[in-house]
């Protein structure tokens, strides 16, 4: 076991050097946003011209856009000039040499969760591309992946090594001007992950990326692009943690998935960014655009998310079902406690014939928190025999919290079949008493009932991820029944 672990350490250290973006003197850029900052960012990253121009064009579009106000969340306006748009480890000495150094806080959190990251992720054959602030610092198992022809690298590296793929697919699912935060991200994104699975290849391992926010006052703008070519399969896991901090911090990521004919992408997220304290002070603003396109026939994209963190979450992982018989799935657990606010859901856009989508959303509200499901099912005129099944269940842990459901259905084809079921319930006194009468204490009883409530979603997660998600819920719910 330990020899394997040190072997992994060795490989990480080596790959880390290869995988590192560039040997820069860069520090944190001063707060502020203008064309000069974007040019500076592009300079630091030594980007090709096409990338710089893309950013500048996005910036121009963003200037003309307005902050969206329709979500069921409240927050003070964000001052975009007070945010720093780039931060990197300062010196070689600061740069991590092994996984232990990559992210001690992260490891600590996982220790607390009872899951040693190294054992659970590495020995389980998961490749990790950890993002330390804005720069990818550790990439593992590249050899195995390379043999299969899989490209899994930092976004910055992909811009240089695979510009043809970037040019072809970047912004092809989430156009620059799609929404305010997507436009901002397109202008200032710093790094993220890039995945390409060649035709007919089943990715030989689960791919996994851990993001975390490090320096204070630094907005983080990841960009992720995953392309599954015809007949390929990939399962990608994204986990996020952030240390305690008082200032609100903006996190505006864009994730684009492209599944060609007969390809399948499974994208799983466990998000526990800092939610703010019990008085609602601090916490991450998590404004994320995630979208996948089923480009070919029989393609399939599944989003599974467990969201327990962030002060505000604004997130709608979506699927555009272009290919005939393509399948979109959305499985979500969103937990809010104290003053957390979440407005999350999905969009399923049916374009091809015989397309089907499934939406399972589980909202849990505790304390004074609010949790909204917002989902759109759109069946376009050509989408014959489209099918959608939506189930939204809300569980309330206190008398002061709230759950809201906003289902939007737009059907332009008479052959469509769209089903929607929704339930809201308070955690049952009878269930709690039943558990206690069998010897479980209140906390164990709550965890048991909540985990049962989330079962259909947890079933969709890879094993180790499901265990983590379960523990995260337990930590997030400590002492919350009332």
């Amino acid at each position, binding site marked *: 076991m330990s020899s394997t672990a040190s072997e992994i350490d060795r490989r990480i250290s080596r790959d880390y050097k290869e995988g590192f973006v560039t040997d820069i003197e860069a520090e944190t850029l001063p707060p502020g946003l203008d064309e000069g900052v974007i040019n500076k960012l592009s300079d630091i990253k030594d980007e090709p011209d096409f990338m710089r121009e893309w950013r500048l064009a996005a910036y121009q579009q963003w200037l003309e856009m307005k902050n969206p106000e329709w979500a069921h969340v409240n927050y003070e306006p964000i001052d975009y000039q007070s945010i720093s748009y780039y931060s990197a480890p300062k010196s070689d000495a600061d740069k991590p040499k092994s996984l232990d150094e990559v992210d001690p806080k992260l490891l600590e959190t996982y220790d607390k969760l009872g899951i040693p990251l190294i054992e659970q992720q590495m020995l389980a054959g998961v490749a990790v591309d950890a993002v330390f602030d804005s720069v990818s610092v550790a990439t593992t198992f590249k050899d195995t992946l390379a043999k299969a022809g899989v490209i899994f690298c930092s976004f910055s590296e992909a811009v240089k090594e695979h510009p043809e793929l970037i040019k072809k697919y970047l912004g092809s699912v989430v156009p620059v001007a799609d929404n305010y935060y997507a436009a901002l991200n397109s202008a200032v994104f710093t790094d993220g992950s890039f995945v390409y699975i060649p035709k007919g290849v089943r990715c030989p391992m689960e791919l996994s990326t851990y993001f975390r926010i490090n320096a204070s006052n630094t907005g983080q703008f990841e960009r992720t692009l995953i392309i599954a070519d015809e007949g390929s399969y990939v399962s990608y896991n994204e986990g996020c943690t952030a240390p305690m901090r008082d200032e609100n911090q903006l996190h505006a990521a864009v994730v684009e998935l492209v599944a060609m004919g007969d390809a399948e992408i499974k994208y799983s997220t466990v998000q526990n960014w800092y939610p703010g304290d019990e008085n609602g002070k601090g916490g991450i603003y998590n404004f994320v655009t995630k979208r996948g396109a089923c480009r070919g026939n029989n393609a399939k994209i599944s989003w599974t998310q467990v969201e327990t963190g962030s002060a505000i979450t604004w997130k709608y992982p979506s699927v555009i079902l272009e290919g005939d018989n393509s399948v979109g799935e959305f499985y979500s657990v969103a937990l809010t406690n104290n003053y957390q606010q979440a407005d999350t859901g999905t969009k399923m856009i049916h374009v091809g014939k015989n397309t089907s989508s499934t939406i399972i959303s589980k909202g849990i509200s505790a304390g004074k928190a609010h949790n909204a499901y917002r989902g759109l099912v759109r069946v376009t005129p050509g989408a014959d025999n489209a099918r959608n099944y939506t189930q939204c269940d809300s569980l309330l842990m206190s008398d002061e919290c709230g759950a809201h459901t906003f289902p939007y259905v737009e059907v332009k084809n008479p052959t469509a079949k769209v089903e929607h079921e929704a339930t809201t319930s308070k955690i*049952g*006194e*009878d*269930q709690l*008493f*039943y*558990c*206690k*009468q*069998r*010897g*479980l*204490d*209140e906390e*164990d009883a709550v965890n*048991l*009932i909540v*985990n*049962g*409530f*989330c*079962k*259909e979603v947890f079933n969709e997660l890879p094993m180790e991820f499901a265990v983590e998600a379960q523990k995260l819920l337990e930590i997030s719910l400590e002492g919350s029944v009332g």
Partner: protein
Amino acid sequence: MLSIKNLSADVDGKPILKGINLEIGSGEVHAIMGPNGSGKSTLANVIAGRDGYEVTGGSVTYAGNDLLELEPEERARDGIFLAFQYPVEIPGVSNVYFLKAAVNAARKHRGEEELDAMDFLKLIRTKLKLVEMKEEFMHRAVNEGFSGGEKKRNEILQMAMLEPTLAVLDETDSGLDIDALKVVAGGVNALRSKDRSMIVVTHYQRLLDYIVPDHVHVLSGGKIVKSGDKNLALELEREGYGWVEQLAQAG
């Protein structure tokens, strides 16, 4: 073992139990009979410590200690088991997981090691036979989609696994056909022992043909209006509950 003295209790501010006296010795089986609404379930819930059942007077001593001081889960771990009149569904939680959590909570409390998956499975297989339940039930969510009879068997299975010192069976016979009743009664009888006391709450005498009690008490209007041996149950069956209601008014 269990000593209830002059116990009164309110539900929602309404007095329901009005001075119950009951002494239960080790290994004894007591039947409590009474018309609907007489307070049988209330008594069971007070013994188990359910929220909302407010004790307004009297005492309950269990194994020499003040039972009313303890939280419901502490009472459970100390060996008090309530077979629910209406067993509760817990969606998404498998029966086997639930039972394992319950058994291990009790073991931990007694300072014993938690059972591992293998030992637990072995144990559960022997107990499943007792109530003629198929193993597939263990992988279904707790009581979800179970028929009335299956739910009641499941309660007895849990009792068999938890090996309580005092079991309170609340209308375990309700909703059972005669075959299911025999199975459930058989399971209960197999669990009778000199270290295990039972309170069998029932509306009908029928159950007591199969679980023969040492003592029978008749509850009416929140009081025990008559106590006797198993023949009292037969008498009740003949005379009907109108008879005890008269007794209650007279007393």
